[in-house]
C-alpha cells in the first residue's frame, strides 16, 4: 500500500479525519476542496457528539467507536501543539433528555432500556436530581435521563485541527479546486478532473458531505445522498443558565424521521462564549438557504417549552446548513462496487461531527484490507437506500414544500 495515491474530495470534518488517518498510515494523500477547509456543512451546524439519540444498531456501534477514539485523537493532537487542541473545545458535559408527556415518558423509558442493554451509560433522574442538574429547566417533565457520555466539540476547530494533523503527516491540501468529473481507464477510476487541472489517484474518497450525490454523479457513479436543511438560533451571551445538552425526547423521533416536511425539536445547550444554541429544524428543500421565519419560530416554541425562563432572551443570530442525508439514515463508507477506485465516506446526516473519527478509522482499515473495528456491512455502498433507482424524483417535489 505504501506509495498509494489517495485523493480525498472535500475538506469538511469527514474529509479531514479521513485524510489524517490515511496520511498517518503512510499513504500519499491529497485533499481537494472546492472552497476552503471547514467552510461547508462542518461550520454550519452544531458540535454535539451524542450517544443519547442513537438506538441499538450499527450507528450506535459507530458512535461508541468514535467516543472511544475522540480522547485518543485529542491526545495525539495535543502532542503536536496546544493551540490546535484548544480550538477543538472538547467538552464532555453530558446530555439530559426529557419527556414532557406521559406517552413520551413511556417511549423514552423503553429507548433508554434498550440503549443500556447495548452498553450505553444512561441513568434515570428523579425530579430532585433533575432540578439540581438543570435548575432553570421546566418542572413539567414526565421523565428525564442523563447520558454522561455526551460531549461537544467546536466543529470548525476540530476539522481544522484534524486537517493540520493530516498535513503534518504529509498530506497536501488543494483549495479553490472543484471536482468536475472522473477519469476512467479500463473500467477503473484513475483520477479526477478539477477546475485546476487533473489529479491522478489510485483511490478517490468522496467526502463531499451533502454534495456527495452531485459529486458522485459527476464521476459517473451516483449515490443517493441529499441535503436536509437545519437551522440553529444563537442567543446573546448569558450568565450560566443551561449546564448540559438538554433536549426533548421528540428529537429522537425527528432524527429518525424520513418526512420531507418541517420538523423541529428542542436541543438546548450553552457554549463557552456564554451564548445558548437552540436547535434545530429538519427540512428537505434542496440547497435553498433562504431565511424562513416560521421555521425559526417553531424552534423557539420548542425551546421555550423546555426553558420558559428564556422568553426574554434575545436571539442575535441564526445559521443553518445542509445535513448529508440518506433515506435509511445511515452513513455510507467503503468502495463503490460499480467503479473500482472510487470510495465514499459520507451521508452522516446530523451526526457527522461526532462520527468523523470513527468513520475515518474504519475507512483506513477497509482501504488497508484490515479487519475493521466494528462490522461495516450496514454502511456499505451497495445497498438500496444508496444505489436505489429512486433518487431523482423526490428533490423537485420537495422544493415545492418550501
Amino acid at each position, binding site marked *: 500500500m505504501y506509495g498509494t495515491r489517495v485523493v480525498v474530495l472535500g475538506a469538511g470534518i469527514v474529509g479531514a479525519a479521513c485524510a489524517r488517518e490515511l496520511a498517518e498510515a503512510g499513504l500519499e494523500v491529497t485533499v481537494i476542496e472546492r*472552497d*476552503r*477547509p*471547514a*467552510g461547508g456543512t462542518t*461550520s454550519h451546524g452544531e458540535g454535539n457528539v451524542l450517544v443519547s439519540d442513537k438506538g441499538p444498531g450499527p450507528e450506535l456501534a459507530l458512535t461508541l467507536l468514535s467516543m472511544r477514539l475522540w480522547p485518543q485523537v485529542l491526545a495525539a493532537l495535543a502532542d503536536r501543539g496546544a*493551540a490546535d487542541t484548544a*480550538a477543538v473545545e472538547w467538552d464532555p458535559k453530558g446530555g439530559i433528555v426529557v419527556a414532557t408527556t406521559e406517552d413520551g415518558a413511556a417511549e423514552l423509558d423503553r429507548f433508554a432500556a434498550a440503549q443500556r442493554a447495548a452498553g450505553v451509560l444512561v441513568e434515570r433522574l428523579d425530579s430532585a436530581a433533575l432540578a439540581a442538574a438543570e435548575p432553570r429547566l421546566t418542572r413539567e417533565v414526565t421523565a428525564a435521563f442523563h447520558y454522561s457520555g455526551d460531549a461537544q466539540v*467546536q466543529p*470548525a*476547530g476540530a*476539522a*481544522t485541527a484534524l*486537517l*493540520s494533523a493530516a*498535513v503534518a503527516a504529509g498530506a497536501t*491540501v488543494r*483549495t479553490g479546486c472543484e471536482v468536475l468529473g472522473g477519469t476512467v481507464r479500463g473500467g477503473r477510476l484513475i483520477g479526477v478532473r478539477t477546475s485546476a487541472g487533473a489529479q491522478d489517484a489510485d483511490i478517490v474518497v468522496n467526502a463531499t458531505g451533502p454534495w456527495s450525490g452531485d459529486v458522485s454523479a459527476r464521476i459517473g457513479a451516483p449515490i443517493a445522498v441529499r441535503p436536509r436543511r437545519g437551522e440553529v*438560533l444563537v*442567543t*446573546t*451571551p448569558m450568565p450560566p443558565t443551561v449546564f448540559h445538552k438538554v433536549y426533548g425526547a421528540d428529537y429522537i423521533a425527528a432524527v429518525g424521521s424520513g418526512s420531507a416536511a418541517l420538523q423541529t425539536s428542542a436541543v438546548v445547550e450553552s457554549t463557552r*462564549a456564554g*451564548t445558548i444554541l*437552540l436547535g434545530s429544524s429538519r427540512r428537505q428543500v434542496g440547497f435553498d438557504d*433562504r*431565511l*424562513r*421565519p416560521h421555521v*425559526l*419560530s417553531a424552534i*423557539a*416554541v420548542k*425551546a*421555550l417549552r423546555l426553558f420558559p425562563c*428564556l*422568553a*426574554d*432572551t*434575545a*436571539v*442575535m*443570530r*441564526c*445559521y443553518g446548513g445542509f445535513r448529508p442525508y440518506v433515506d435509511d439514515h445511515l452513513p455510507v463508507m467503503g468502495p463503490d462496487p460499480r467503479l473500482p477506485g472510487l470510495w465514499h465516506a459520507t451521508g452522516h446526516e446530523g451526526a457527522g461531527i461526532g462520527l468523523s473519527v470513527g468513520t475515518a478509522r474504519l475507512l483506513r482499515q477497509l482501504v488497508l484490507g484490515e479487519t475493521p473495528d466494528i462490522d461495516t456491512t450496514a454502511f456499505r455502498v451497495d445497498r438500496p437506500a444508496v444505489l436505489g433507482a429512486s433518487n431523482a424524483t423526490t428533490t423537485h417535489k420537495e422544493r415545492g414544500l418550501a
Partner: protein
Amino acid sequence: MAVRQVAVVGAGPAGLAAAEAALSAGATVTVIESAEQPGGQYHRMLPRAYQATHPQRLQHHWRAFERRRRALLHPDCTWWPECTVWALEQAEPGMPPRVHVLDGSVDGTGRPRRVLEPDALVLATGVHDRVLPFPGWELPGVFTAGAAQALAKGERVVVGDRVVIAGTGPFLLPVAASLTEAGAGVLAVLEANRPATVLRGWASRPWELAAQVGKAAELAEYVVGQVRHKVPYAMGQAVIEARGDGRVEEVVIARVDPDWSVIAGSERTLAVDALCVSHGFSPQLELPMAAGCALTAAGFVEVDEDQRCSAPGVYAAGEITGIAGAPAAVAEGTVAGWFAAGGAPAAVSAARRRAAAGRAFARRLARAHPIGTAWPDWLREQTVVCRCEETTYAALCRAAGAPTREDPRAVRLATRAGLGPCQARICGQTVTEITARAREQADAPRAEPHRRPIAQPIRLGELAAPAAQAGPSDRPNMKESES
C-alpha cells in the same frame, strides 16, 4: 391598476423623500422606523422627553424637513415609529421580500410581530460610523464621531473640554462644528489623508460637481465656521494611540504617509479629555443582503438610474448606496419612492439627474478619503480588535495564518471575532481586512461581514408568538393605545 402598496424602511432624509414621492405617485405607503422620531442621522431630533424650546437651533434645513415629515400625516401613509424590521423573507419569486417587523422599541420586550407583503420595498437604512481599532480605542472617552455628534445634537451633551477629532472624511468638520456649537472645546481636527490624495480624488470629471453646489456651499459654511472658532485642521496626521488610566487622558498623534504608515519620529502626545474618531462609514447592509441585492465593488448597494436593486421589487436610496450627504439622499429617495409606486419616468427627471450626480459625488468622496492600507501597523499584539469578544490582533493573525484555516467563517469561529452582541457591525470589515492581509490576499471580501439574516435581535418569546399579517392601513397597536 390597483393601488400599489409601498413599504419604506428608514425615515431618514432618503426614506422620508421616498414616502413623499410614492404618495404623490398615488401609492399607499407604510414607513417603518426603529427610532421614535423621523429624521435619521441628519435631522436627529430631540427625544420627546428632551423637547427643547428651539430644537431647530442646531438643525439645518429645518423647514424642508418639516415639510417632508408631513408626508407621514398623509391619509394614505401609515407611520410605524419604534418598529424594527428584523427579517426579510424572500418568499414569492419575482416579488419583493416579505417584511417582518417587531412592534416596539429596540430594547423592548413582548413586542408583537407583524408581516407586510408590499408590492415594492424601499430600503433607506443609512450607515453607521466605521472606526478602525488602535491601541486604547476601547477606553472610555473615545467616541465615534457620529455618537459624539448625536450626543451634541440630540441630547445637548458636551463630550469634553479638550477634544481631538481624527480619522478621515468631510464629516470630521461638521462634527467639529456641532461639538463647538454645543460648547465643547475642540483642540484639533486631524484628517489622515494628505492634500494630494484628497485633491486627486476630487480632480477627475469636475463637471459632475456642478449639481452639488448646495453640498459644496454647506461644506464651505462649516469650514468658515471652523475658522471663526479657530479650530486647527491638519491633514496627513492621525491619532495612532489613546492612553489613560481608566479613561482617555492623552493621545499619540503622528504624521502619516499616503498609505497611513507612521512617519518614524513624528509622534507627539497631546493631553485630551475626549477623542472622536471616524474612518468613514459602513452601510447598514443586512436588509439589502437579506433581500438578495447585489453590492458594488466598493461595498454599497448596487442601484440603477431608477434606484432599482438587482432583487425584484426592491429599491435602495440614501447612504446605503454611497456616501454623498443629505441632499443626495433626498434626491435618491425621491426617485426610489416614485418608481416603487409605479410613477412615470418623465416626472422625476430632475431628481434622477440629482441622484446620478449624487452617486458621482459619492464615488469622488470615497476616492478623496480612502482608508490607507497600512493602518494595521498601528496595532499591537494585545490590541483588541473585536470588542464584544475581546479578540486580540495577535489571536486573529495567528488564526488567519494557519494554512488549514482559510475560511473566514473558520477564522471567526476559532477567534470568536464578530460573533458577539454587535454581530460584527463594528469589527466585521476590520476582521476581514486583517485576515486578508495576514493571508496576503489582495482583496478582502465585501459582502461576507454583513450577512445577518436576523437583522435585529428578537426575543425568544416574541419569535415563538405567531405573527399578524398587516394590511396597508394597519397601525401598530402600541401607538394607538398611547394616543
